């Protein structure tokens, strides 16, 4: 068996077969495009949601109060110790005067704004605003920061933080399940489409087998055909996805209430989208072909 001849034959036959069985090829590509678009759209929504949740997480922080007996210099010296605590991303020192101003500003529109504005700075304490790397470790981080000598008390909302973590995990889980489900459904539809195309060619397979072709040789052109169809479908789906994404971005930009949402520009994510589409197209095209002809190889 001269494999070098076979490789060229597989490619040539794969291409030839796409045109010879034009309608089935078109159907298979259409199905791949449709399935990738559904999956892609859902994945992009999930990615954007994930980023929005991530941003909300970043806004979350807790306050660590400095012992009132500490001088300003002593209080400021605690910064390096807090920064050394695991999971601490950044630390901002805030004097009691700054805290008072911020407090008054925060409630400036409140009906008791004048009352809040008159609060003396002594009511407040020097504090550190501590940002974390991983929000799910808030409790451990708070405990570790409180263990630093000179820190007396904290203000944190672990329930809120855990809530964010929970929402994010649930969203990621649901997205993963739906994507896997869609992948299976897509694979099944494509498998059946290719199988229909293969069924009409079972005679060719029988002839090849009776001539002494090995199963690998029979599979070769079908595998290449599946790969080519998968790639064509992936590229078409990519451009459709791009167009749809840009339309949604424009719609969000023009809609006042939706402007709070920030969408990841497609230019930032297109290599990943193209890579995932090409990979998924190749996998479903190839595996669909292999599975579809498996039954007809038993001659």
């Amino acid at each position, binding site marked *: *068996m*001269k*494999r070098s*001849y*076979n490789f060229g*034959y597989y490619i040539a036959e794969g291409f030839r077969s796409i045109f*010879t069985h034009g309608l089935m090829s078109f159907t298979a590509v259409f199905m791949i495009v449709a399935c990738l678009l559904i999956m892609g759209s859902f994945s992009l929504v999930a990615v954007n949601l994930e980023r929005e949740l991530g941003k909300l997480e970043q806004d979350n922080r807790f306050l660590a109060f400095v012992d009132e007996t500490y001088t300003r210099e002593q209080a400021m010296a605690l910064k390096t110790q807090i920064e050394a605590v695991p999971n601490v991303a950044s630390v901002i020192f805030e004097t009691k005067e700054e805290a008072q101003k911020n407090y008054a500003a925060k409630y400036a529109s409140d009906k008791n704004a004048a009352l809040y504005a008159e609060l003396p700075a002594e009511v407040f304490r020097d504090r550190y605003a501590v940002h974390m790397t991983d929000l799910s470790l808030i409790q451990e981080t708070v405990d570790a920061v409180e263990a630093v000598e000179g820190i007396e008390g904290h203000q944190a909302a672990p329930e809120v933080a855990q809530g964010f973590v929970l929402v994010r995990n649930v969203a990621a889980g649901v997205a993963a399940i739906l994507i896997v489900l869609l992948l299976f459904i897509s694979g099944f539809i494509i498998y059946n489409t290719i199988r229909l195309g293969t069924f009409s060619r079972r*005679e*060719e397979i*029988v*002839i*090849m*087998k*009776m*001539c*002494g*072709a*090995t*199963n690998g*040789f029979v599979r070769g052109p079908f595998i290449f055909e599946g790969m080519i169809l998968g790639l064509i479908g992936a590229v078409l789906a990519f451009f459709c996805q791009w167009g749809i994404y840009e339309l949604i971005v424009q719609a969000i930009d023009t809609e006042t209430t939706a402007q709070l949402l920030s969408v990841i520009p497609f230019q930032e994510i297109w290599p990943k989208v193209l890579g995932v589409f090409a990979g998924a197209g190749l996998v479903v095209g190839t595996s669909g072909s292999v599975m579809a002809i498996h039954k007809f190889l038993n*001659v």
Partner: protein
Amino acid sequence: MIQLLDIHETYDNGTRALKGIDLRIKDGEFVFLVGPSGSGKSTIIKLITGEIQPTGGRIMVNGYNLGNIRPSQVPYMRRTLGVIFQDFRLIDKKTVWENLTFAMRAVGASPREISKRIPYVLDLVGLNYKGDRYPNQLSGGEQQRVAIARALVNNPQMIIADEPTGNLDPSRSQEIMLLLEKINELGTTMLVVTHEKELVNRFSKRVVAIENGRIISDETGGYYKNEEII
């Protein structure tokens, strides 16, 4: 060489297709296998081509023991055989040349081997000017010639023809049979399955008659004498 020793075949539905067949076909022989429908002729072909396994007995095909052959070896065993079908089984979307190329590609032949072998085979079957035609542009006899060329193109040790003249008129049938005889004279063993009495009687060849899964006569150089078989 083909050797069937005490072959039994019982299908899953309980049908006993073969009941102890002993048959030996030597290299270079021309053998007619005759018998009525359902007598077991097709089962013998399927056994020889490795499509099914016998439920009992031993089969040797051109040096391969089909009783314990590995699935990966079946294609190589089949390369020693050429099969001709009653309905030709040509690929309509391929030209005559492409149909033959397809068969040679299946066994990994190089483009050079293909371009050298196909003209010779087309010449042998008398279709040397019709390589660019599609099957539906040919007569039934010509289509069967293409099928014979396809069976021959990989230079098999043996050709198995399953009712090769079943779809042809008498004069075309005679031509096809003469062609098979010519190929046999060039050294290829020939097993022709048929139930066309007149055609068989016109050739003085070995005739193996089968009925109800048993060989009822096997005469070298004899004629198809049992009238009831038809």
